[in-house]
């Protein structure tokens, strides 16, 4: 546990720096856009209504959707930029709204007096309305700040470094220490930045008071020092960093964390400097390897076949492999080779339940399915595979429930459902001793794991030599065991990586 903790704490400076830069950049730009917009809206009723509607609508978009949309709009670009844009959009509502409210709440008699003594509209705005609205505007900025710090954790999914890296990796690999460190750090940052803004505001409100009180002067100095320090830390991230030779990436689930760890370790031992971008969204990582911002990751043939080639048929494992290879070549993506295991959907049952019903293949379920309850992950029943399975076998279940994957396995273990849509390399298949049903009619797609690389990486003979060690070297069984170490036994990813390396040597 304490080794785990110190391992996590080593990551803290980089994650802190990434999170801070993202938050400060988004808030700064958010303020620079939103305050003028709020001023404009307060002056014109015609602007106010539509503007407030638009910023409210942005806010109602699920944050993940905004992130994905921004990545798509930027042509697959990942990292700081899409996260920064999404967070900036998200920060706007409270700032715009509070600016409008703050300006509107300035008393009419004060404005009449300002006008009556001969202030121009611009002077009234700058010298009277804005200073008087400032506490309300700052309250909006503080709200936006706290939201942004929280939302910045999601930017991990588009490849920006943040405390979200702790949280996503931790949740997926059942590393509660990582989740805790990430959550506490994120909450701490939110509280810290919030009180910093509050103290800056407090000082601004007292800027006219004589500074001869030493306490006030000392406070002012320390606040400035903290602001300067934080800005320096955030800006440091903008300096050109020594670029790693290779960027290894992965999607946000255990197998991908293990495979990314394995790739990174092999490549580092071959002398490359490696940067890991973990927990990227599935679309995000594919686009990233195409555009060259990621050098290598593990993809599955079925994903390419169904999601990118939009094929709804299932010609069988070998034809899919061939079709996918052709497609990738057309797309200019280097498919370096297959790792040997496949992580596909399979219907799974408790062994005792299957024996009791006399089931060993999906065929056997056909006559029983109208009596059985099925559980699946959140997407399975919406995928073409389920539709094909239903049509090919002409069956449907009495009850269809969807679960978070880990809850799906416990539902099966506790006999709440009879059948689930398991993943063939899932460690829990081994741990719960589940029976994977055969699929004689080829309803479920093959998902052969393969290594996709950027042209830059594939052009390096040393890279190709290193990667060759991983090709056809990991069995379903070995991958399932590696996943089990993390998901069921609670070992860190590094232990599973070591296990796989041992298995590879044996082959």
């Amino acid at each position, binding site marked *: 546990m304490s080794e785990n903790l110190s391992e996590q704490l080593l990551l803290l400076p980089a994650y802190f720096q990434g999170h801070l830069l993202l938050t400060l950049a988004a808030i700064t730009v958010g303020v620079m856009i939103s305050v003028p917009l709020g001023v404009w809206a307060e002056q014109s009723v015609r602007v106010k209504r539509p503007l407030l509607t638009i910023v409210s609508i942005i806010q109602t978009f699920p944050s993940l959707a905004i992130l994905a949309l921004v990545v798509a709009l930027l042509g697959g670009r990942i990292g700081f930029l899409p996260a920064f844009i999404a967070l900036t959009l998200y920060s706007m509502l409270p700032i715009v709204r509070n600016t409008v409210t703050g300006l509107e709440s300035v008393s009419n008699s004060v404005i009449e*007096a300002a006008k009556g003594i001969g202030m121009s509209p611009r002077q009234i705005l700058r010298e009277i309305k804005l200073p008087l609205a400032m506490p309300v505007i700052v309250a909006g900025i503080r709200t936006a700040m706290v939201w942004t710090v929280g939302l910045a954790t999601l930017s991990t999914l588009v490849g920006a470094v943040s405390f979200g890296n702790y949280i996503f990796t931790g949740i997926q690999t059942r590393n509660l220490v990582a989740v805790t460190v990430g959550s506490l750090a994120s909450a701490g940052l939110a509280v810290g930045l919030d009180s910093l803004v509050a103290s800056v505001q407090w000082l601004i409100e007292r800027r006219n008071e004589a500074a001869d009180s030493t306490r006030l002067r000392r406070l002012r100095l320390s606040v400035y020092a903290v602001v300067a320090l934080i800005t320096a830390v955030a800006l440091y991230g903008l300096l050109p960093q020594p670029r790693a030779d290779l960027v290894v990436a992965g999607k946000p689930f255990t197998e991908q964390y293990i495979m990314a760890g394995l790739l990174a370790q092999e490549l580092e031992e071959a002398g490359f400097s490696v940067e890991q971008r973990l927990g990227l969204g599935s679309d995000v990582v594919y686009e990233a390897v195409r555009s060259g911002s990621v050098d290598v990751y593990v993809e599955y043939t079925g994903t390419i076949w169904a999601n990118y080639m939009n094929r709804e048929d299932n010609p069988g494992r070998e034809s899919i492999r061939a079709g996918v290879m052709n497609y990738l070549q057309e797309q200019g993506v280097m498919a370096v080779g297959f790792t040997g295991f496949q992580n596909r959907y399979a219907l799974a049952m408790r062994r005792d339940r299957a024996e009791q019903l006399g089931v060993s293949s999906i065929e056997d379920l056909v006559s029983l399915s109208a009596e059985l309850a099925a559980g699946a992950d959140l997407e399975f029943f919406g995928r073409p595979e389920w539709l094909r399975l239903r049509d090919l076998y002409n069956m449907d279940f009495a009850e269809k429930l969807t679960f978070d994957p880990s809850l799906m396995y416990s539902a099966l273990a506790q006999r709440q459902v009879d059948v689930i849509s398991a993943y063939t390399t899932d460690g829990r298949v081994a741990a719960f001793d589940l029976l994977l049903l055969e699929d004689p009619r080829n309803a479920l797609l093959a998902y052969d794991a393969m290594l996709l690389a950027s042209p830059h990486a594939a052009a390096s003979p040393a890279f190709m030599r290193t990667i060759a060690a991983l090709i056809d070297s990991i069995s379903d069984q070995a991958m399932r065991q590696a996943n089990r170490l993390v998901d069921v036994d609670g070992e860190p990813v590094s232990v599973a990586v070591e296990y796989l390396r041992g298995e590879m040597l044996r082959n």
Partner: protein
Amino acid sequence: MIELKNVQKSYDGGATLAVADTSLTVERGEFLGLIGASGCGKTTTLKMINRLEEPTSGEILVNGRNVLDQNPEALRRNIGYVFQGIGLFPHRTVAQNVIAVPQLLQWSPEDIRARCEACMEMVGLPIEEYGARSPSQLSGGQQQRIGVARALAAKPDVVLMDEPFGALDPITRNELQDEFKNIQRSMELTVVMVTHDMTEALLLADRIAVMRDGIVLQIATPHELLTNPTHDYVREIVAMPRKRAERIEELMRDE
């Protein structure tokens, strides 16, 4: 000197007139009271003088110059303005409020400081004691004293007042009325004051214009208005202070 020549104001494109064909002259150093019920057009008339409102037709001259030919902000900086809402700037100190107009006029810092001191002295709130306070730390009467000081800080010779003492308690109101009348006399200010309090108008103004429905019914000295009202409505509104005065006189005789 303020001259209004056939001034009209309509807010609805001419369908109804808030101020109808009004002509009047306020001489240099004169104190004119504008009196009438709510909505009679007295405040609109006042606000047209410093272009807080613009006349629909007619001409307004301040010291011989048409106000519409002047930049509205420059015009307002040269005309003192005091109103019931007081409108001190709550984020500025009392002294900063007083020097608002000289600052807008970009006086030198020495002149500003000297003038600030003089104005605050004039309204009885010395700068040493009150200058650094915030407006919220003053009583209502003190706030309006500062309102007056602010209006006079840039040494205007014309001052517009919109029910300046309306929100004050009677004792404070009397004090301020007296003090302001003294200041007006000694500085020879040309003042237009809107009020709905006939007693106030009678006691402060050199002449009084009685307005109803946008029309000036009679302009006269207080004495004339009391002794020779030319209009039933005027007779009606001077009757109340007269009755009160007579009643008070009776009370004093009984003693």
